[in-house]
């Protein structure tokens, strides 16, 4: 179940495609209920449970209360996000999908590539997984180029569809010197992309955009630097397997660089030498030489980007 239509090159689309792929692989049927909004999702959960679903994947932190309750009621295992503590033998497991490791890499990449020494982060809200990626990105930048300036702006508390706001805010960041924008935000991210494509950096050069979750290459006009790709298929595949094996709910799931469920998109805009350097860092993370700890609260984001 996803809150919005699965055509956003982002959270919803990845969730749905991942599930479909995993289902196809395991030969189980996948019913998609998309665009359910954040209002009252219980009736849909109940209906799916009644229709004999073997696993309910509630793909929005907003569903983390309703899903386990309905699951318990119909005793159907459910998967939720952003609430690890709700792990429950045979009933509930969490897959906190956060690309923080990938975001760290993106930070590294950005720090290496910025000409102006300023990078920007634009978000259309401050949900936990985005905060984690924002912080990781900032840490990546700092670790690589401590003197790089990071500019951070939120379009609005829940401006997910505010494309105009996305463009406006992004333009301000660019004017503030940023020549690389790390953007997170559903509908509004298209406004960010538009800003990147139509505005020159302060040094007169091109501004580049780092996306999250999805791969916007199909609609790119040559301004996409990279994207923190998620691939939820391994997660869902693992869940299905565990359900079959009857060990569901004994452990949570996550996405990481190691199993490739998180990765950084290589585009033509990335010079090979820099790419190899980034790959090195990637290896360090996998090997545990570098540990990126996710920070899910807005406060720690602000702490990192404030006062520079």
């Amino acid at each position: 179940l996803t809150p919005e239509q699965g055509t956003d090159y982002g959270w919803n689309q990845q969730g749905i495609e991942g599930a479909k792929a995993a289902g196809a692989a395991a030969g189980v049927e996948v019913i998609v209920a998309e665009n359910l909004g954040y209002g009252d999702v219980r009736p849909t959960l109940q209906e799916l449970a009644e229709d004999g679903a073997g696993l309910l994947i509630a793909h929005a932190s907003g569903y983390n209360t309703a899903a386990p309750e309905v699951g318990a009621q119909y005793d159907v295992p459910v998967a939720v996000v952003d609430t690890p503590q709700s792990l429950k033998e045979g009933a509930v497991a969490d897959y906190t999908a956060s690309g923080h490791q990938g975001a760290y890499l993106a930070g590294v990449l950005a720090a290496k590539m910025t000409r102006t020494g300023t990078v920007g982060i634009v978000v259309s809200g401050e949900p936990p997984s985005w905060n984690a990626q924002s912080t990781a990105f900032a840490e990546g930048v700092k670790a690589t180029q401590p003197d790089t300036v990071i500019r951070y702006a939120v379009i609005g508390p829940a401006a997910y569809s505010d494309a105009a706001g996305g463009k406006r805010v992004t333009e301000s960041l660019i004017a503030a010197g940023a020549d690389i924008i790390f953007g997170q935000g559903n509908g509004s991210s298209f406004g960010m992309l538009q800003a990147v494509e139509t505005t020159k950096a302060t040094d007169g050069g091109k501004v580049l955009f780092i996306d999250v979750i999805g791969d916007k290459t199909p609609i790119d006009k040559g301004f996409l630097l990279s994207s923190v790709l998620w691939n939820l298929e391994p997660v869902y595949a693992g869940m299905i397997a565990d359900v079959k094996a009857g060990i569901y709910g004994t452990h949570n799931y996550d996405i990481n660089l190691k199993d490739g469920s998180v990765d950084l998109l290589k585009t033509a805009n990335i010079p090979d030498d820099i790419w190899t350097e980034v790959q090195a860092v990637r290896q360090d993370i996998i090997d545990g030489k570098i540990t990126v700890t996710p920070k899910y609260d807005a406060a720690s984001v602000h702490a990192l980007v404030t006062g520079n």
Partner: protein
Amino acid sequence: MSGLFTDAFIIALLAGVVAATVPLLLAGLGEQISEKAGVLNIGIEGMMLMGAYGGFYVAWASGNLWLGFLGGGIGGMVVGALMALFCVRMGLNQIVVGIALTLGAEGVTALLHYEQFSRLYPRLSVMAPLPIPGLSQIPIVGPALFTREPVVYLAFALVPLFVWLFRRTQLGLMLQAAGDKPAALDTAGVSVLKIRTIAVLATGLLVGFGGAFLSIVAAGVFVPFMTHGNGFIGIVLAMLARGRPTWVMGGALVFGTCLSATTALQVAGVDVPTDIIQMLPFVAVMAVLLVAGRKARLPAALGAAYVRGER
């Protein structure tokens, strides 16, 4: 902090103010006409969305941004025509129809977007700015305010036009009569239904332009629900302005400034929760009402359908 407030940045902020103000201004002026004529037009969020979609679609299909604005105006007017038909001609409840039209427009535009654009998300080219000779040379202010898309100037030019319309023309009197005592207008030989219909269509046109501005200039893309409450703020502005176009502009500027200021603070690294900042304009207005406490008078017949000879 150092070196953040460069000219470029300040210019961007000022430009942001304008970009955020124009849709509100158009929405507010549009609503104002309907309200003057006694039609409480709750449907302008819908008109705006339809304008945003129509504007984007035409601009994208024709590749001509100006045609796009035309399409936006027509899109808004289509919803306006429905409003006029249902509320003015048939006398249906204005709040019910207004909300229905908003919901309907949300649904229709989202569906159309889903069918057409949800795979490719086409984006438009930028509209070429038109520097105003002389003024555009002023440092900072010049590039920010006087090197803008022509539609921006047109939007602001509407304000004096409206002042003139309201104060210096028969239409101004007729609108006010239609809103304050329709029977008097009718017995003076002017069709109330005609005046109100004109008013509502004009609302649709203006608000449609506002929507088109959002999708064509402000965003360059169309995404579902992108008007994001602009229409409702427009309603508030129109009501607060008590018939004065100048006040609508003032209000729109306040809101636009607040939005841009939010960005400025965040970029400057000042840690203020966006929810709190979002409240500032409303808190400000409520405070003003509380202390100033001027009777915000609305047209006497606002919201009431007119039926000739009814006692």
